[in-house]
């Protein structure tokens, strides 16, 4: 079953008289468990794609199924719920809430899900442990390094146990050592079964995915190109190829 399926989605931005078509008849299918990277020049529509696929932004035309559900025309409330329960975001700027400490930051999506306190606490501690920051639970974002902050952001995603992770240049603001660390965590998460779509500028990181997509001018190009995989990813690759084909 595809995790994400877009059919001829178009997204237009209007500012005054200028009309920008950020996505043009965009179609894409991503399978459950896939790790897809998206590359493309600035202004190509990568972020718009992330916004649309993450239900952060509405789109004009086309249809979008997420986890088997038509999410093309949902109310704000329904979209919020889908974002909360099915999607996890990782941002280039980390987007931690600066006034909240690590624990409270990871807690945010769980609060919106109205989970009981006990369960929230268990999930938070587990997720923070997974990213190796258990000793920093009461630290503020400003007291952490960039890599640590991004790990908190990942913990925030993990605590919510989403089906789809959308990562927007998660390593863009990090040095290479930290970036590698983050990529490793993401790969572990993907291995555990979570679908990941990641926008990146870094060709090396892009190459580590099952599938590499390229966006230019609001369209997917080079759709068929398949990159070499590390050995342990072969089985998955097979399945995704089938679907892609």
């Amino acid at each position: 079953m595809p995790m994400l399926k877009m059919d001829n989605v178009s997204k237009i931005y209007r500012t005054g008289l200028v009309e920008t078509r950020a996505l043009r008849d965009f179609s894409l299918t991503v399978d459950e468990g896939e790790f897809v990277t998206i590359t493309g020049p600035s202004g190509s529509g990568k972020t718009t794609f992330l916004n649309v696929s993450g239900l952060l932004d509405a789109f004009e035309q086309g249809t979008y199924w997420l986890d088997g559900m038509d999410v093309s025309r949902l109310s704000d409330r329904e979209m919020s719920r889908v974002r909360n329960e099915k999607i996890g975001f990782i941002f280039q700027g980390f987007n931690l809430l600066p006034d909240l400490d690590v624990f409270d930051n990871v807690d945010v999506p769980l609060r919106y899900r109205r989970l009981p306190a006990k369960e929230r606490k268990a999930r938070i501690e587990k997720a923070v442990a997974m990213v190796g920051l258990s000793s920093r639970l009461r630290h503020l974002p400003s007291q952490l390094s960039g890599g640590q902050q991004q790990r908190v952001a990942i913990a925030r995603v993990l605590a919510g146990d989403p089906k789809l992770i959308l990562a927007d240049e998660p390593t863009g603001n990090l040095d290479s050592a930290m970036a590698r660390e983050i990529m490793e965590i993401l790969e572990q998460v993907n291995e555990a079964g979570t679908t990941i779509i990641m926008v990146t500028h870094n060709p090396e990181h892009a190459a580590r995915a099952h599938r590499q997509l390229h966006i230019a001018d609001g369209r997917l190009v080079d759709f068929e190109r398949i990159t070499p995989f590390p050995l342990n990813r072969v089985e998955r690759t097979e399945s995704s190829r089938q679907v892609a084909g």
Partner: protein
Amino acid sequence: MEFGPIFRSLLRSRARVILIVAEVALTLAIVANCLSLILDTRAQLARPSGFDDEHLIAIQTNPFDDRLRDQKVLDRLVDQDRRTLATVAGVRAVSHTGLRPWERSGNITAVRVPGTHGEPARTQSAEADPGLFDTLGIPIVQGRGFTEAEYDHGADAPLSEVQPVVVSRALADALYPNGGALGKPVADAEETQRFTIVGIVDRFYNPFGNTSEKVMFQPARSVGFDFGSRYLVRTQGNPAPLMPQLEKALLGVEKGRFVQLRTLVDSRDEFHGRDRLLVASLNAVMALLVLVTALGIVGLTSFSVAERQRQIGTRRALGADRLAIVRHFLLENWMVTSFGVVLGVLLAYGLNFGIVTWVAGAKLSLATVAAGALALWTIGLGAALGPALRGARVPPAIATRNV
């Protein structure tokens, strides 16, 4: 709800929180004390005289013509005046009396039960003719009023003679706490003159000195060249249009004198003028203060919303719907306001203590403080609502906007 995280995050944006808390606290302290002063003053303003104020005119006449220096002429003039005023169409009752309702003026006398010692009772006293009670509209509830004969004789009565008096219920109770004042004797503080209570009236209130409810009426025709004579006229309808006619009638009787007329409502309004002004001032101060504070909260919350656009976007991305954002800001604001309210309650009592000690006024009642606190909570929420709604309109896509 997210009390914990919001509380912890508030502790970290000190400047804004301190400002709102201080503003709310001071506002509450001021509003509560203004309210208290207003309630205190309004209670006095609302107190009715018990008289038919709306239909009464007070007339002061002062002779200047030398012919009127003769007391007999003046006495006759009073009787003529009374008759003449009563014949003016629209006049319901007329009285010749020394009572000056709502004018902060009159006589205060000390009286006691004959043969007792210690502090005498202080009471207003006024000369009255038989028509006074009907004119004021205060019925005699016990005993009787005065007769024409008593009135006629009163001014010339020797000190040794026991005079009939009508007293208010408050004076009767002060003199005879166990009741049964009717028919009992009263004397002035030095017991040079004695009176018998022949009648009791209820509903007397004329603020003057410290004796607002106590009065003792004596039957006497009180008139003199130097102080003139005074009449109260009760009209059937609106008294003001009748004044020119009454003036003309009196000058028609005798023009060698000044005649001044004034409705009791005018006197009462002047009496209350400064208190009304105080209430109006306090109301204005409260309203403006609340306006300023509300503007302040709107401003600070707007800034905090503007400053946190990205955070709002992030929260939206993490699954907050619009309502959750509104709720977040309202809750945050409510918590800050609540700190302010708690501090404000303390400040209000402090300020009240200062005002009561150094200036004057009543102690703050719990209900007043509670009303003030409730008002500020409402205002705080109301002021935060606009910015919070604006916050809810922040598009979630802002979260992915890169620096």
